């Protein structure tokens, strides 16, 4: 087992991604150490969501490499062909360790909340159903929707659905959590309950990568902030420093616009 203190939880190096002739990521490198909470900021079209989706291969990068806990994902990046993973089993295994929370929740509409939580642990990780159920119940308790365990997603509010989705990610016992604009689809009054859950997770020392528009959250909760502009990292650093002392003109503009 690689040493947690020296091996980054996630290591991206030189990630390039293009759609047809359009390159949206021009070689992005980023490391997330164990226990770090990284906010990824940028205006729409900056490539921030694409970058996050390259980590678990929902988008396969055309160039560069991705390692999770030191294990590099084997990629076939032959030029002129669509890039693809060499070993789908490896991708599935690593995906289970890097759980994702989506902007639109994407809870499975045909399963109850509890069933949503245990679906992947039971069928992908082949864990014992009873244990998973107990764990899932406890997690629902934690995110505050234990009473909804037997409801279907359609009967929950957006905030409740997103909390359920976070609980679903947690039942995978992930070592890294990926959040793709988790509050962007929510009504303003529901944002707070989701951010609170995320704050608690950060306080627990979980490794998190968060694509977000919530500036206050990025500033207060994340240890590091990365600002993407047009497919490149424009600025990165400790969150508190970056927000009080933005170096690049673009990031300055970005915070003033977002805070306006």
């Amino acid at each position, binding site marked *: 087992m690689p040493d947690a203190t020296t091996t980054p939880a996630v290591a991206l190096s030189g990630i390039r991604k293009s759609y047809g002739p359009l390159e949206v990521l021009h070689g992005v490198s980023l490391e997330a150490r164990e226990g770090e909470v990284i906010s990824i900021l940028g205006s729409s079209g900056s490539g921030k969501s694409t970058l996050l989706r390259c980590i*678990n291969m*929902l988008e396969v990068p055309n160039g560069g490499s991705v390692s999770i806990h030191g294990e590099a994902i084997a990629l076939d990046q032959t030029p002129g062909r669509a890039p693809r993973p060499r070993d*789908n089993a490896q*991708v*599935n*295994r*690593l*995906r*289970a360790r890097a*759980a*994702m929370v*989506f902007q*639109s*929740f*994407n*809870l*499975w*509409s*045909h399963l*109850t909340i509890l069933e949503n939580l245990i*679906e*992947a642990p039971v*069928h*992908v*990780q082949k864990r014992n159903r009873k244990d998973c159920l107990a764990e899932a119940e406890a997690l629902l308790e934690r995110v505050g929707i234990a009473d909804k365990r*037997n*409801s*279907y*997603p*359609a*009967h929950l509010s957006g905030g409740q659905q997103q909390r359920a*989705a976070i609980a*679903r990610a947690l039942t*995978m016992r992930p070592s890294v959590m990926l959040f793709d604009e988790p509050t962007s689809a929510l009504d303003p009054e529901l944002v707070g309950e989701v951010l609170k859950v995320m704050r608690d997770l950060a306080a627990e020392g979980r490794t998190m990568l968060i694509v977000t528009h919530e500036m206050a959250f990025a500033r207060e909760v994340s240890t590091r902030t990365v600002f993407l502009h047009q497919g490149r990292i424009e600025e990165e650093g400790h969150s508190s420093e970056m927000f009080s002392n933005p170096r690049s003109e673009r990031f300055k503009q970005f915070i003033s616009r977002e805070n306006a």
Partner: protein
Amino acid sequence: MPFDLPFLAESFVALLKGIPLTLQLTVLSVVAGGILAFALAFMRISGKWWLDVPAQFYIFVFRGTPLLVQIYIIYYGLSQFPVLRHSFLWPFLREAYWCAVLALAFNTAAYSAEIIRGGLLSVPAGQVEAARACGMSGLLLFRRIVMPLALRQMLPGYSNEIILMVKSTALASTITLLEITGIAAKLISESYRPVEVFVCAGAIYLAINFLVARLFAWLEYTVSPETRKPEERRA
């Protein structure tokens, strides 16, 4: 033309004997056609033109021509080829029964394939992506997420298709099979009392189709508890 009750009862009993054959033809062709339909639907959504185009052509041909033509081509038409007449398939292709099943199956496959394709395409992309992000893929993803979601969309259309198939089995009577309509035609030509026979046969078909519709309504109800209010679910 007064209604003759004894004759009505007599016809009804005679027509009841046709039910097993009608049901057999329906079930066999729906099962065989369903399997073929799945294959065609996957060819359509494969994204590979050399699979998509043949499937499209098949669907175009079988949906664009009368079922009667398809039945006649298989039952009468194939005998034109000596090669087939001497092959191991002939014992089957000589039988009106198997020809009817074959034609009905080919026919329903074309219609069902589009229903299945529609169901598969209706599965929300986000939910599939969430499953991938959890490490699901291939058969597991299909079995646990895609199929249950697609099924909900498919059932109403498929229920209609099966009712159409029950009605379509009537055409088997044109190649000598004595299912309900075959018996009805025989009774009419013997008695010249079309109205009474029609009433009996019609009532039997309506009863079968009513049951099919109820069965599917029940299936739809049981597979989609998420569309119900929580109170109803417990009840």
